[in-house]
């Protein structure tokens, strides 16, 4: 790995163990109505070659977190505090120039809607070649050859001719492949995929996820996979963070989260997945209510307004005391450990079959 500019403070050994460490991240937007706490004290780690799934509803702060990692927020109305340490380098408060050099080269992003996320005015090849020319100092010719190579790698047929096509001449799945090619053109160490399959057909979804996985095995990049679809992370992620109202409410391996989830919100997410094998007459069980306003989030546990199990916690702890997320596997919930297990086994699991 090439050494980048050293951060002012040497990272503590504990932090440098991980390729990406996010510690106590707060992202706040100043709006006319007040301050929106989009991310509210989030921490997670990611190692090379690993995939971290970040799951949550719309507005739970998933995308904002990752835009903050890349430094793509609007500096005029956004305040970011906390630490984002990528390969030993502190990214919060880093200058635009520093971030510009890292973006596309060391960390890259795959966006959700490839039709709007690619510029309609330039050919796919040019858009792939651009960061290669900028970061690798390649000539136009070399960059074009690289773009063709990348298109071939992501499985676009006849890349020599398709390289000169415009995004609107590609199908949705091909556009998403091209976007992945664009993100991977400089062999980044971290790829953030923000709902990369949401706008695609189910069959194409599987292809794209396989592609990401294959490319990860070839290059050993770390991937953050943002999604609201637990089905997507089931086959791709190693670790999972469940986010609610800008906070991580549960953390664990993908097996933990899918087989023995502990947080009532994670139960709700699992319960809302339609199953082909389910009885057609049994309605889906959506989570009641709607996501809280981040302008004025509920006191205590942010999920208590929608939680069916607050009665089992003594007193009004749920509405007054913010539950902490333990390090490693665990969930931010006031329910006792055996209560969580019993409720899941007795009430939740039978509904999931």
């Amino acid at each position, binding site marked *: 790995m090439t050494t980048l500019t050293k951060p002012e403070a040497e990272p503590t050994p504990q932090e440098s163990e991980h390729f990406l460490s996010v510690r106590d991240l707060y992202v706040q937007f100043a709006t006319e109505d007040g301050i929106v706490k989009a991310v509210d004290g989030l921490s997670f780690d990611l190692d090379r070659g690993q995939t971290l799934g970040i799951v949550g509803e719309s507005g739970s702060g998933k995308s904002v977190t990752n835009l903050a990692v890349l430094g793509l927020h609007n500096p005029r109305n956004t305040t970011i505090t906390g630490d984002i340490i990528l390969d030993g380098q502190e990214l919060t408060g880093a200058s635009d120039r520093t971030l510009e050099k890292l973006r596309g080269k060391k960390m890259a992003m795959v966006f959700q809607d490839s039709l709007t996320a690619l510029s309609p005015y*330039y050919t796919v090849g040019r858009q792939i070649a651009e960061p290669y020319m900028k970061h690798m100092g390649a000539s136009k010719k070399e960059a074009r050859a690289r773009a063709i190579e990348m298109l071939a790698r992501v499985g676009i047929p006849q890349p020599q001719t398709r390289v000169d096509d415009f995004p609107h001449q590609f199908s949705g799945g091909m556009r998403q492949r091209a976007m992945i090619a664009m993100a991977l053109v400089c062999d980044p160490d971290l790829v953030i995929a923000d709902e990369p399959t949401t706008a695609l057909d189910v069959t194409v979804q599987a292809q794209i996820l396989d592609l990401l996985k294959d490319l990860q095995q070839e290059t050993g990049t770390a991937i953050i996979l943002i999604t609201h679809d637990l089905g997507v992370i089931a086959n791709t992620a190693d670790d999972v963070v469940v986010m609610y109202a800008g906070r991580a409410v549960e953390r664990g391996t993908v097996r933990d989260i899918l087989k023995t989830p502990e947080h009532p919100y994670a139960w709700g997410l699992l319960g809302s997945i339609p199953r082909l094998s389910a009885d057609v007459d049994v309605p889906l069980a959506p989570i009641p209510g709607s996501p809280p306003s981040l302008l004025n989030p509920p006191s205590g546990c942010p999920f208590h307004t929608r939680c069916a199990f607050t009665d089992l916690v003594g007193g009004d702890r749920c509405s007054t005391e913010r539950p902490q997320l333990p390090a490693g596997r665990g969930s931010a919930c006031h329910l006792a450990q055996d209560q969580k297990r019993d409720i899941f086994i007795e009430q939740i699991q039978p509904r999931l079959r």
Partner: protein
Amino acid sequence: MLRFLTRRVLGAIVILVAISAVTYFLFFVLPANPAELACGKNCANPDVVHAIKIRMGLDQPIYAQYWHYMTGIFTGRTMPDGQHCPAPCFGYSFADSQMIWPELKDRYPTTLSLALGGSAAFLIIGVGLGMLSAWQQGKTFDRVASSISLLGNSVQIYFIGPLAIALFVNNLGWLKNGSDPTWTSNPGASLNGLILPCLVMSVIFWSNYSRQTRSLMVEQLSEDHIRTARAKGMGSKYVFYRYALRGAAASIITIFGIDLGSVFGGAIITEATFNLHGLGTLAVESVNKEDLPMEMAVMLFSASAIVIFNIVVDAAYALIDPRIRLA
């Protein structure tokens, strides 16, 4: 691209034929009788009036007159009185019996230069102001620029024209008073004489273009593909010019295409303000004299100019936005 242009040119020809036909036939609905305007003292004698009518070709059926008129433009023709009128032939002026084309040829460079120069001026100044405002969004420059452009919007050419002459020509001596261009014989003086009229004419367009450009740029800068470009590590200036401006340019050009008519209108008022001799003043004179062939010729000429510029604008649009080419 070739197919696109062919289609647009064919469409333009249809439009021009329609315009010419409608204009030509409309003149015959008018109460004015050209023969009676030309007969002078002898109007009491019906034979004289009839002779004039035959000389002007007015005894023929309207469609035949129209046919001779239109073919004359492309091939030239022999007028009913036996004189030859070389192509492009727009006939004779009823007012002074002079051929129309030489007069037109004399006048159009002024109007065309004004329209082109004025457009260039307001595109550069208006779009430039808008881009700076978008770049400085919310800062002092943004606010000052929007106030200045509002000022531009609320003045008129015939008001600022004399003021500008008094200031820049008479007091400061920086610029020359407006004069008709003679591009072939004296390009330097022609340019010099057009700077002030073009700038004055451009003022009324500044505010529209700077405001439109600003909002288009701000809108473009919030697009997803801008974020993608930044996520690739492209610099903010690069993104601003290559991505945002490219997107805004398509819309700016569309607005320009719509404004072409008012550009010619502005050129006419500017001609009058700066005492220039262009098509605008020619049109007004010919209307006052009920000089139908001259009105017709000016009308056809400016309509053709607008249609041609529209094709240029559409072609530019297709070059900027690749999605148009196939559509």
